[in-house]
């Protein structure tokens, strides 16, 4: 994952807290169980996201000319290829 474990836990808290504050959402389990389930779901999704990141980096590395990671050109291409991969998810 591209975020820390602490950040992942924080995001799970955000999901549980947001749902608790949303009138249109009813809890069928306690908040802690929901937080843990949200954490599991987020972890899986963010592990998959790494594949998008890797695919974008691979595309840059297979360009004819060498593009140094961190350069302006690398950043621009990364964003482009990353978005291409995201679109493949149907987002």
């Amino acid at each position, binding site marked *: 994952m591209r975020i820390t474990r602490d950040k992942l836990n924080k995001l799970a808290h955000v999901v549980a807290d947001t749902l608790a504050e*949303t009138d249109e*959402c009813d809890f069928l389990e306690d908040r802690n169980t929901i937080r843990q389930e949200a954490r599991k779901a987020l972890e899986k*999704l963010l592990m998959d996201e790494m594949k998008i990141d890797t695919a974008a980096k691979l595309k840059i590395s297979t360009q004819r000319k060498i593009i140094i990671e961190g350069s302006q050109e690398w950043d621009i291409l990364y964003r482009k290829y990353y978005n291409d991969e995201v679109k493949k998810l149907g987002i």
Partner: protein
Amino acid sequence: MALWERIALIGFTLISKKDDLRRLIVISGLSSEMAWDQISRLRADAVAPLECAIFPIGSMIFSREYVGYLARQTVKSLVEAKMIQTEKLKVVEERVTQGLIEELSLEDRINEEVRVILDAYQDDMRRSGASYMEMFKKVKNELARKYKAVL
């Protein structure tokens, strides 16, 4: 300080429409207002009309579209696991998306605040030879502690 050096302190990408990727100018730093101020000065100095656009560099680690996808999928898995129920799925998804965006953009907001602080002291830092990157890290850690932020 030369105008281009001053520009280098600001946090945006400046791209001439006629330029190709090799001629992009990527700069790191402050607010859009300050970037436009610098661009206006550049335009005033330019011999030929200068067409350009700015794009914030300090964007979230994930795109907003991807965060929306994260929220939808997370809500979906909670509904399927029968942990929550709702008749207004879109509303719930939107709230979770906003919550995640807020949390994931927290680091950007802290970075922005650090840049504003350091910009106010840039002359002192230059005189004392302080490293911008080191100062950036120190001030960022202080602000993260202050806001109890998880980065």
